[in-house]
């Protein structure tokens, strides 16, 4: 075994440039695999976290009949006296914050320009809405008693050429099925760095939204943040009630979760393409080595080395190439992922996919399970790629190999 490694190591050193290039191919493949996997995981992890902190929370309490897709404002579809439900939720030790929201569909217009948007009535003082306060880039955040002010996202402000202090016309559906219209002043412009959310979401104080939408003391949902995301299921189970439905973040972000799985399957194809190219390089290197060493294979065979052992010699070379390449790739891929994971990778503003809140920046993220599986895959594919040349060497007839030029 020791001799096998010694020979393989020295054989790789015979054509250093070729061996280095082959190991580099494995390295680059491993680097790419790790980085691509981390980008995809980071993208969907980010999208899930965006969904949770902006839209769904860890838990949502809704009226049993509330249909999210219809954005119903009918009183029977809403939570009556949301403050009471909110206070009860806040009593739970697992709950970080709970806050009511009223959601209505509307149209924002200025002059000839108009755009369909989602209007959300929020409690400006709630901890869960701190993210919007911190995201204010112009003007001020809302106050609970503001009756004329709204907060709009930066992309929407840019689209309409609006600044803090400007006025716009807002039209929304009301609980009785009519529409109501009012001129509002832009108190502030915010960004959450999630383009599709910021472009389509306008905030106003909950009390004003309730009045504007004729929803009185009702809310569409109670947005709940927990201290620990993993507590969502047990807390939801404990809150079961016939009047309300309790949805967890995994129910509410099902699309993100499913899309991540779909993307994962799609990425496997890309991984295989990358590894296929690498495998070709490794195969080529070893096939060249086999032809260059045909006579030596003949000598080894003549002195009694069996095909299986000749095969092992070439597989050992491939294993050494793979080990060097994979270690290099792990280091490089790890460094790139760690750096980009820290500073983020800006992507063009996009509407993304409906229901998935992809941010303006992706922060690559990789799990140790990903690293292990990708490393093993790169390693195994390299070894598989070496099977053909190793078999070629093992099957050489000694007499023919000895007469090779």
């Amino acid at each position, binding site marked *: 075994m020791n001799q096998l490694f010694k*020979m393989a190591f020295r054989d790789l050193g*015979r054509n250093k440039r070729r061996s280095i290039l082959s190991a580099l191919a494995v390295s680059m493949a491993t680097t790419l695999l790790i980085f691509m996997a981390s980008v995809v995981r980071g993208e969907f992890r980010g999208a899930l976290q965006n969904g949770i902190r902006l839209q769904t929370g860890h838990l949502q309490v809704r009226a049993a009949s509330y249909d999210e897709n219809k954005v119903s404002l009918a009183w029977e579809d809403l939570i009556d006296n949301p403050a009471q439900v909110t206070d009860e939720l806040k009593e739970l030790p697992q709950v970080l914050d709970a806050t009511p929201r009223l959601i209505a569909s509307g149209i924002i217009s200025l002059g000839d320009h108009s755009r369909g948007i989602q209007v959300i009535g929020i409690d400006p003082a709630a901890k869960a809405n701190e993210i919007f306060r911190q995201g204010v880039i112009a003007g001020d955040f809302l106050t609970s008693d503001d009756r004329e002010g709204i907060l709009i996202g930066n992309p929407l402000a840019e689209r309409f050429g609006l600044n803090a202090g400007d006025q716009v016309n807002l039209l929304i559906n009301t609980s009785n099925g009519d529409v109501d219209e009012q001129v509002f002043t832009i108190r502030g412009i915010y960004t959450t760095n999630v383009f599709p959310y910021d472009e389509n979401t306008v905030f106003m104080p909950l009390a004003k939204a309730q009045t504007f939408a004729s929803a009185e003391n009702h809310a569409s949902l109670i947005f709940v943040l927990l201290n620990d995301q993993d507590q969502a299921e047990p807390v939801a189970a404990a809150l079961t009630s016939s009047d309300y439905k309790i949805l967890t973040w995994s129910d509410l972000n099902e699309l993100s979760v499913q899309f991540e799985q779909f993307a994962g399957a799609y990425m496997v194809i890309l991984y295989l393409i990358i590894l296929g190219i690498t495998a070709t390089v490794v195969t080529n290197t070893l096939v060249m080595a086999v032809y260059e060493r045909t*006579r030596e294979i003949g000598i*080894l065979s003549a002195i009694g080395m069996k095909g299986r052992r000749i095969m092992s010699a070439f597989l050992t070379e491939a294993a050494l190439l793979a080990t060097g390449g994979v270690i290099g790739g792990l280091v490089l891929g790890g460094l790139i992922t760690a750096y980009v994971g820290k500073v983020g990778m800006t992507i063009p503003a996009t509407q993304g996919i409906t229901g998935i809140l992809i941010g303006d920046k992706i922060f690559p993220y990789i799990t140790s399970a990903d690293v292990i599986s990708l490393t093993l895959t790169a390693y195994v594919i390299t070894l598989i790629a070496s099977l053909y040349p190793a078999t070629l060497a093992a099957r050489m*007839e000694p*007499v023919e190999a000895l007469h090779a030029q």
Partner: protein
Amino acid sequence: MEVTKVINATRDFKIGEMETHALRGVNLSIENGEFTALVGPSGSGKTTLLQLIGLLDQPTSGQVFINGQDATRLNRNQRADLRKGTIGFIFQFFALIPTLTAYENVEMPLLLNGTKPAERKARVLEMLEAVGLSDRGHHRPDQLSGGQQQRVAVARALAINPKVILADEPTANLDTENGKQVMDIMAKLNKETGVTFVFATHDPRVIKYASRVITLRDGLIVENNGSSPK
């Protein structure tokens, strides 16, 4: 006692549409301790015969016995097993593994044979000494002269204590002095250890060392002179 016996062996090669009859019914018996030369012009079949005796190739028809065992009935792996315990090879080109040192080259057949490390080391040192290269063990082939490389090949062939050593034109790529050195060593080892040598050559300086000369022409043995040692 017979080390090898060839019975009515033929070997045909087909290259494209053309069929060549390299051996056309050869019968040969080689006794233990012989120092036998296979001679003949190029294309006479001496290398082919050597390859059949060395189990590197299989006859198209006929039988080859090594140490009483019918090698034509063996599969590829069994032939490899038989080779590594019974037959040593010396080739015309200095057939050493270039990445291994002289010591490691001599050690290789012992490794394949499963010889224990301490015994292996002693045997390698003994063989290197026998060919006068005790001080060259750590040199790689490219650091040795042609003659020295061929002596390492002799040491490697002898390391496993084979029944027979087959040498194909062992001096063809050596100058007179180195060729003589190699032949002297082979003759000496034949005398001292009793190992059988069979070598293919058309070098008259080599032929004179042989105790038996077998002449081939057109795939047939046409002359068989000399005797087996008693």
